[in-house]
């Protein structure tokens, strides 16, 4: 107990998340549910990256699914057309997404205002258009098959291995994000969110930090995309579409901006709820929208931060 209370609050949350992940298969020992949980973890990684951008630097990206698409399609195009091994593609996708974010972000992030949201919106649409139209490379709207990942004669497939793999990767992502927030970079980012003028006169290179966190969030998204492609074994342009980008932003806002646990909770709700509401048939979307409105009215800061505040605790 003593060791636990000495742990900083944010690392306590990380520990709680790990315990929850380890305990969940004991309760839901069913391949279908395990696959849904794995899907939640994979999407949560992308949401987490976006939340670093939105919740800490205060920048909204409306094209984040584009980076997910880059990660996903590299897993398919690399081995199929370029003869890469899946492992090479697994590294190349996130690297490519990061490089693209850097190229696009560099000129825009020197400007203030809504330029960034609009530019990412355009970028996302552009990526999705390329994936839809370059049929020779991407298979067009039908998508393409993704070869499975294997090492030493073992292939990653099946509900249980995927559950643990996705849980492990998300936990590493959450750990990295937690580290970042508690570091000088994290303080600089949070300062920028509240006042970039204030941060500037203290020696914080505002444009550089915005760019760095944008690149980082793109890398997170592309890793999630690569995992998504491997998980399904098939990928379509829908996974990089505009609606998906909006979903990621919604997940982050719903769970709580600037909250690591909130990224996971928000994702879980938006992935699980539509499955649960299927029984209502055509009213599914109505109910989903209604529930989200109720959440945002009563838990305005997002689910996790609102509950934390009510319990008189802070996540940071």
């Amino acid at each position, binding site marked *: 107990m003593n060791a636990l209370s000495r742990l900083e609050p944010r690392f306590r949350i990380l520990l709680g998340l790990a315990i929850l992940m380890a305990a969940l298969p004991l309760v839901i020992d069913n391949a279908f549910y395990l696959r849904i949980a794995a899907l939640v973890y994979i999407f949560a990684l992308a949401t987490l990256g976006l939340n670093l951008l939105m919740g800490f630097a205060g920048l909204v990206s409306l094209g984040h699914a584009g980076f997910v698409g880059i990660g996903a399609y590299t897993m398919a195009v690399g081995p199929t057309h370029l003869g890469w091994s899946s492992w090479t593609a697994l590294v190349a996708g996130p690297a490519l997404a990061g490089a693209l974010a850097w190229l696009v972000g560099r000129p825009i992030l020197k400007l203030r205002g809504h330029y960034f949201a609009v530019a990412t919106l355009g970028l996302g649409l552009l990526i999705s258009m390329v994936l839809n139209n370059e049929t020779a490379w991407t298979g067009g709207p039908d998508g393409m098959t993704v070869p499975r990942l294997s090492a030493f004669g073992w292939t990653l497939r099946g509900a249980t291995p995927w559950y643990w793999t996705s849980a492990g990767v998300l936990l590493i992502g959450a750990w*990295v994000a937690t*580290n*970042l927030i*508690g*570091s*000088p*970079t*994290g*303080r*600089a980012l*949070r*300062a920028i*969110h*509240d*006042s970039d*003028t*204030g*941060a*500037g*006169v*203290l*020696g*914080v*290179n*505002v444009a550089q930090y915005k760019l*760095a966190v944008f690149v980082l969030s793109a890398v997170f998204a592309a890793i999630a995309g690569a995992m998504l492609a491997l998980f399904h074994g098939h990928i379509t342009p829908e996974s990089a579409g505009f609606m998906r980008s909006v979903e990621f932003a919604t997940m982050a806002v719903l769970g709580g901006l*600037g909250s690591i646990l909130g990224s996971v909770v928000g994702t879980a709700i938006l992935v699980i709820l539509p499955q649960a509401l299927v029984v209502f048939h055509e009213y599914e979307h109505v109910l989903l929208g209604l529930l989200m409105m109720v959440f945002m009215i009563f838990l305005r800061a997002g689910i996790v931060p609102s509950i934390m505040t009510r319990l008189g605790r802070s996540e940071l």
Partner: protein
Amino acid sequence: MTLLNIKEIGIDFGGIRALDQVTLSVEKGEVFSIIGPNGAGKTTLFNVISGVYRPHRGSILLDGTEITGVTPWRLARAGLSRSFQNLQIFGRMSVLDNVMVGRHRHENRNMLAHLFTLPSVLAQNRISRELAQHYLSYVGLDIDARRSAAGLSYGELKRMEIARALATEPRILLLDEPAAGCNPTETDALCAVIRKIADDGITVVLIEHDMKLVVQISDRIHVLNQGRTLAQGKGAEVMSRPEVMTAYLGEHGTREMLRA
């Protein structure tokens, strides 16, 4: 020795000359006050010096180096920091974190090390935390530093901003109306803090409306009116000059003052 040299600075806002031909120099280690009626261009001058605005005419030298139009973060790293009249607080951060951001220019900024929290980062955080505590007590802010900055009173926020600027270890510190909104006791305490800062070798440039504070603390006073230099000199003598009185009180007020 001259630390800050401002030569014939001018800036226009849509045809209005906000600053025109302002020339002044600040000596190392002094408390230099800029006063003037509302709209005289005091804060605009601060914004020009600290790189928030780029001047249209003239040049600024910091310790002999040209800094005209240099961005605020570069100036901060060169040892020039400031506070704001309308406060630029990081409201969602704790008081301690606010001041720790001030340590930014002295911290290791290797992001890869931050992502994996290498032991060096932890050591760094500890040092920054201790120094932030030090600067908070330096400005006399003895409160629970883990509190959210948003919960502080106006006077406390003013002092927190000074602590934050001091944490950058500046050579020159620009304070924009630090005593605004403070009660007399707080103003006296603030006066002592500013004196201490100057005694510790940090040059202070001050904008202030509290004339008692200005006269008490300043080595030299520079008076601006409608974007131009009106007078410059030492202490109470500057204030009693007719042209300065006229700027503040108008012709009629000055006659009344002189008669009284």
